[in-house]
């Protein structure tokens, strides 16, 4: 810890695209082309050994940012340094130090057994034979891959393929791993296995991990810090705990013995919000300072059988943020330094 693995300064990436006001054949041939901003003037830094989540809705610019960091895309403006390299200009030397997993694009050769892809990457990254065998053995153990090494990639299930992708991306022991939706479409068990694997690699080698995902359980189990992108702009850079604190509410689950009209209870306070109800219970979002008051009123009004109070999950918070924005975040918190 302590040294910076990634430094991004005023990074922007623009694309050219056909303007929507130029439809039809004429528009296709001679229509105006507009500049679309995918990433807009973002700056951040990531420490060596950190696991950071890059979050945002679809089209927010997460994947574009990752691709600028890996050297796939050339930034339109701004500066990117990863491990001291300019990813685009120093591509050859830089790529020895990184691993990339794109959930929607395979790195493996489709028609040949998995092991052939690994041997290819051994030669590409010039990994010593002993290191190759040791890492392949260890990672195959951790991800339970031994049985599929001789199976062609096209015959693997999605879960098996994603686990195989992880090994391919890590065989050369990269210092930084970029993961773009690595658990997309996986079942709960496969996701959990991959999360454990990543934590183990991070712990054992101090590998820096940068992750984009829509699965907040990935983020909660792996990251302590998140970067939140919205329409290409960085709107939050800080700890998950701080992000949760911004949402100054608690989720109260109340169960009771008789069927009641829930609206009656909600009318007791303007600040409590009944988010869902069921036959003999309801879920309330209550400001943190009003928990006791809310509980007292609930106990007075209803025959309570059970109560739980907990902080909202990151998923609930993200849903709210993506729906209504981050308007209440103080400026220095939204762009806080590392």
């Amino acid at each position, binding site marked *: 810890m302590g040294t910076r693995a990634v430094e991004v300064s005023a990074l922007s990436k623009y694309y050219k695209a056909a303007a929507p006001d130029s439809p039809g054949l004429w528009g296709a041939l001679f229509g105006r082309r507009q500049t679309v901003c995918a990433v807009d003037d973002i700056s951040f830094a990531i420490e060596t050994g950190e696991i950071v989540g890059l979050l945002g809705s679809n089209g927010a610019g997460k994947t574009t940012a990752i691709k600028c960091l890996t050297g796939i895309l050339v930034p339109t403006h701004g500066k990117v340094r990863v491990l001291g390299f300019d990813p685009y200009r120093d591509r*050859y030397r830089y790529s020895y130090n990184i691993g990339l997993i794109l959930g929607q694009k395979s790195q493996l050769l489709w028609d040949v057994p998995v092991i052939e892809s690994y041997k290819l990457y051994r030669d590409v990254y010039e990994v010593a034979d002993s290191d190759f065998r040791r890492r392949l053995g260890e990672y195959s153990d951790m991800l339970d891959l031994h049985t599929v090494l001789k199976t062609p990639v096209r015959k693997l299930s999605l879960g098996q393929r994603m686990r195989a992708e992880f090994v391919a991306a890590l065989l050369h022991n990269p210092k930084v791993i970029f993961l773009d939706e690595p658990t997309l479409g996986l079942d709960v068990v496969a996701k959990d296995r991959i999360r454990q694997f990543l934590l183990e690699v991070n712990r054992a080698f101090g590998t820096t991990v940068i992750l984009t995902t829509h699965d907040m359980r990935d983020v909660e189990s792996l990251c302590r810090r998140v970067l939140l992108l919205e329409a290409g702009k960085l709107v939050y850079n800080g700890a998950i705990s701080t992000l949760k604190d911004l949402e100054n509410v608690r989720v109260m689950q109340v169960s009771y013995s008789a069927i009641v009209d829930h609206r009656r209870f909600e009318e007791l306070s303007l600040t409590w919000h009944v988010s869902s109800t069921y036959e003999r219970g309801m879920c309330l979002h209550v400001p943190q300072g009003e928990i006791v008051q809310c509980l007292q009123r609930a106990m007075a009004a209803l025959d309570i059988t059970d109560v739980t109070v907990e902080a909202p999950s990151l998923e609930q918070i993200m849903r709210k943020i993506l729906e209504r924005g981050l308007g209440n975040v103080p400026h220095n918190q939204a762009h806080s330094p590392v």
Partner: protein
Amino acid sequence: MYPITKLTALFRRYIIISLRAESEFRADFLTSVIQLVLNSVLVIVFWDAIFRITGPVNGWTFADSVMMAGVGELSWVVAMLFPGMDVLPDRIIKGDFDRYLTKPAPVLLSFAWERLSIPRVFHSLVAGLCVLGLAVFQFDFQATGMGIALGLVLMTLGRVSLVLLNTSVSLVGFWAGKMQTVQSVLGEFSRFARYPVVFFGSPMRLLLTWVWPYGLYLTYPVLLARGELELSRNLLTGAGLLLAGWWLVVLLLFRAGLRRYESFEG
């Protein structure tokens, strides 16, 4: 520049991968063998029919045409070492370069070698040598050892130039997107590959030698093999320059193209 030892190791690895992949699809390999045999037979039958009517044209005989068919088959050995350039624009649009751009290996070579089919290369080699043997032993083509060697060098330079030309056109896909129409229009010129350039007048002969190098890798190697060696120095120098020129064009287009690469999908 990439270390030659690394390139050799990668090429060897892709050969193994190709063999493994082909063993997965044996039926496809067998049909491709039949197609290649049929192709050579049809060319010989065609020229036999023509020369029975015309006799030699501009000093070009039936044996020369059989020899040219053999050279053409052999030139596929060279072309098939760099396959996939025709699908490059489609892959650029789909953002399939991502995996190559993040690896310490040459991007275009990795893209090509991943599509390598060693059994087909081997088959073209065997078919080409058989047809050459047929020209020499069956149809009495008069060849010299030095002539054949220089002819093979010229064929290699010319065929690689054609590969680079096609690659240059494909790389325009970074800007233009889909290139199938342009590729198929340019592909029409490949019809000229069936005929020796000695059949044509000077301007066409120049065009088919130094722009679309069909003459360079098909007709002139036959003339060199026949022993007309006074041609060799100018031709080899010209072919070397042509190759270097197209290589430079590919390099510049590729470097500029990567700045335009948009890496769609995923």
